[in-house]
């Protein structure tokens, strides 16, 4: 028998069909979500502290504190987003007469975070690579134009853009898992589950593409 992670990634239908007969267990999904949040927090903290040397001395302490706070908020918000995501899928599945415990939806969505962990690790690697090669300019952060230009400079970096593109691709992978997860968690047909998961995910992806400046 293969490891359950490979089943989740490669054969989610079989994995969730097997899990449907068992009582919901949220520990593993929670850990997966928490790992994703921690990796994201590390990425954000790295980004914020990397620009400390170019900031004025009086701002460095403040930005350092903000970096820590943002990292903590990222870790804390990961389970919250997980719960909200499950609630959205749960609510949407109600339109298709979905039945099943919310915990089952939470469990299904949580397992879908496996590709997102890989995505977060790649994003961390790309961010670290970008920060290692990027020379931060000395700009006046009180100048909105200079700050905007600085943000644009970072956002248009190929490494950062690649991280965002890969994030979308891994999100598609995660959505594929969520479809089969919601199928068995809420007793939906594959098509209904694809709609329940696909609509919010596609909306999210479109918003990401807009942010990338493609549309």
């Amino acid at each position: 028998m293969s490891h359950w992670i490979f089943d989740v990634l490669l054969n989610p239908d079989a994995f969730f069909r097997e899990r449907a007969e068992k009582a919901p267990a949220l520990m593993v999904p929670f850990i997966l979500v928490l790992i994703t949040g921690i990796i994201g927090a590390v990425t954000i903290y790295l980004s914020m502290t990397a620009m400390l040397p170019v900031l004025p001395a009086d701002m460095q302490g403040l930005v350092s504190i903000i970096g820590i706070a943002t990292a903590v908020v990222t870790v804390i918000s990961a389970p919250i987003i997980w719960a909200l995501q499950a609630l959205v899928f749960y609510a949407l599945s109600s339109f298709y007469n979905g039945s099943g415990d919310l915990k089952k939806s939470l469990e299904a969505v949580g397992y879908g975070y496996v590709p997102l962990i890989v995505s977060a690790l790649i994003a961390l690697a790309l961010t670290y690579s970008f920060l290692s090669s990027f020379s931060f300019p000395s700009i006046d952060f009180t100048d909105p134009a200079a700050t905007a230009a600085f943000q644009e400079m970072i956002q248009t970096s190929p490494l950062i853009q690649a991280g965002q593109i890969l994030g979308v691709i891994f999100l598609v992978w995660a959505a594929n898992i969520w479809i089969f997860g919601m199928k068995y968690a809420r007793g939906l047909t594959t098509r209904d589950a694809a709609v329940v998961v696909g609509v919010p995910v596609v909306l999210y992806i479109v918003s990401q593409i807009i942010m990338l400046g493609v549309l």
Partner: protein
Amino acid sequence: MREVVFTGAFLLLLLLLCGAADAATPEEDAAQVMVTGAVIDPAVLMPGDVATVTVTVKNTAQVSVPVRSAKMYTEGNILVLDNPYQTFGAIGAGNEVSFTFTVQADAGSGTYYPRLVLDFTNAGSLRYAVPVRIEVVEPRISVADVPDAFTAGKKEIVRVTVSNPRSGEVNGVSVVPSGEGIVSVPTSTFIGALAPDGSAEATFNITPDRETTLTMTVTYRNGRNQRTTEASIPITFSEDKKGARIVVSGVEVTPENGSYRVSGDVTNAGLEVAKAVVVTVGSPGVPVDPDRVYPVASLDPDDLSNFELTFRAENVTEVPLVIEYRDTDGNLYTTRTNISVEGTVLPGQGEEGGPVPLTIALLIVAVVAVVGVVVFFSWKKAKGG
């Protein structure tokens, strides 16, 4: 009786003397006229010079000597330009008379003898050869001091020596520097008289604005003859060995907010101070705020200062760094050093902002392929299940 005899003898002697005087012939009287001196001005002529020859004669006879004429005759290449004494009266007993003639040298170096002829009425004539010297040699001008190198617009000291190798004095000597594109301070120097074998020095501040020839013209008088002689000093520009020399080092170019920031050090590797040093970027670079130009304080020899500039540049691999500075006389100098902006690309121009690099693109394609295959097979298995 004795007194009578003495007085008679005395009277007899007087009579004898008077008789003797009365007995001198005109030729004998004329023979008493002699030349006492001859003066030539200038003392030594140059070819073409006009001079005056003054001959002084004295009548040492007891009686007046009649002179019909006093003439000077051309001898060789000494031309007599006038003869004002075609007729003359007489030279009184014991008197001196000067005869002045104008002559011109029409020959090379040598001594010539034009003749003065005094024609005594019915008593022959007096002939006297006046020695007149001619020397071809002119006063000489030699360069005593010039700088090792001239630079456009930079004031340099040029010192010349004027010497007089002639046997005679020259007067009214002055030195006038001239040349195209040359400014001289002072515009001329007056030396005055130069004795034989004498010399004098003249100093000028010369500022050339192009490569040219500096001509030092010496004007002088030899008697009443105005003459010039000149010497040429070629002025060619070359690197000033002693001047300030600005060297740029430690240049770092970093992209910044759509433009570039360049920083580095400027060092004065020369031997003189560089004042009012200003660093900026030349075309095709476009200086932008906040550091369009970077003024550096005066740099002493071996002194160093850093600089920072911000500029824009598009579609170029290097831009010139322009350093302007002045010397202690205020002359402006400009040096250029190219700095490379290749490999320091701005967002939108390459690695940090342009199209996704190939390796990253391949990574994305690979991930898309993997995810596509995984999704495809997961759905296939689901249908099969």
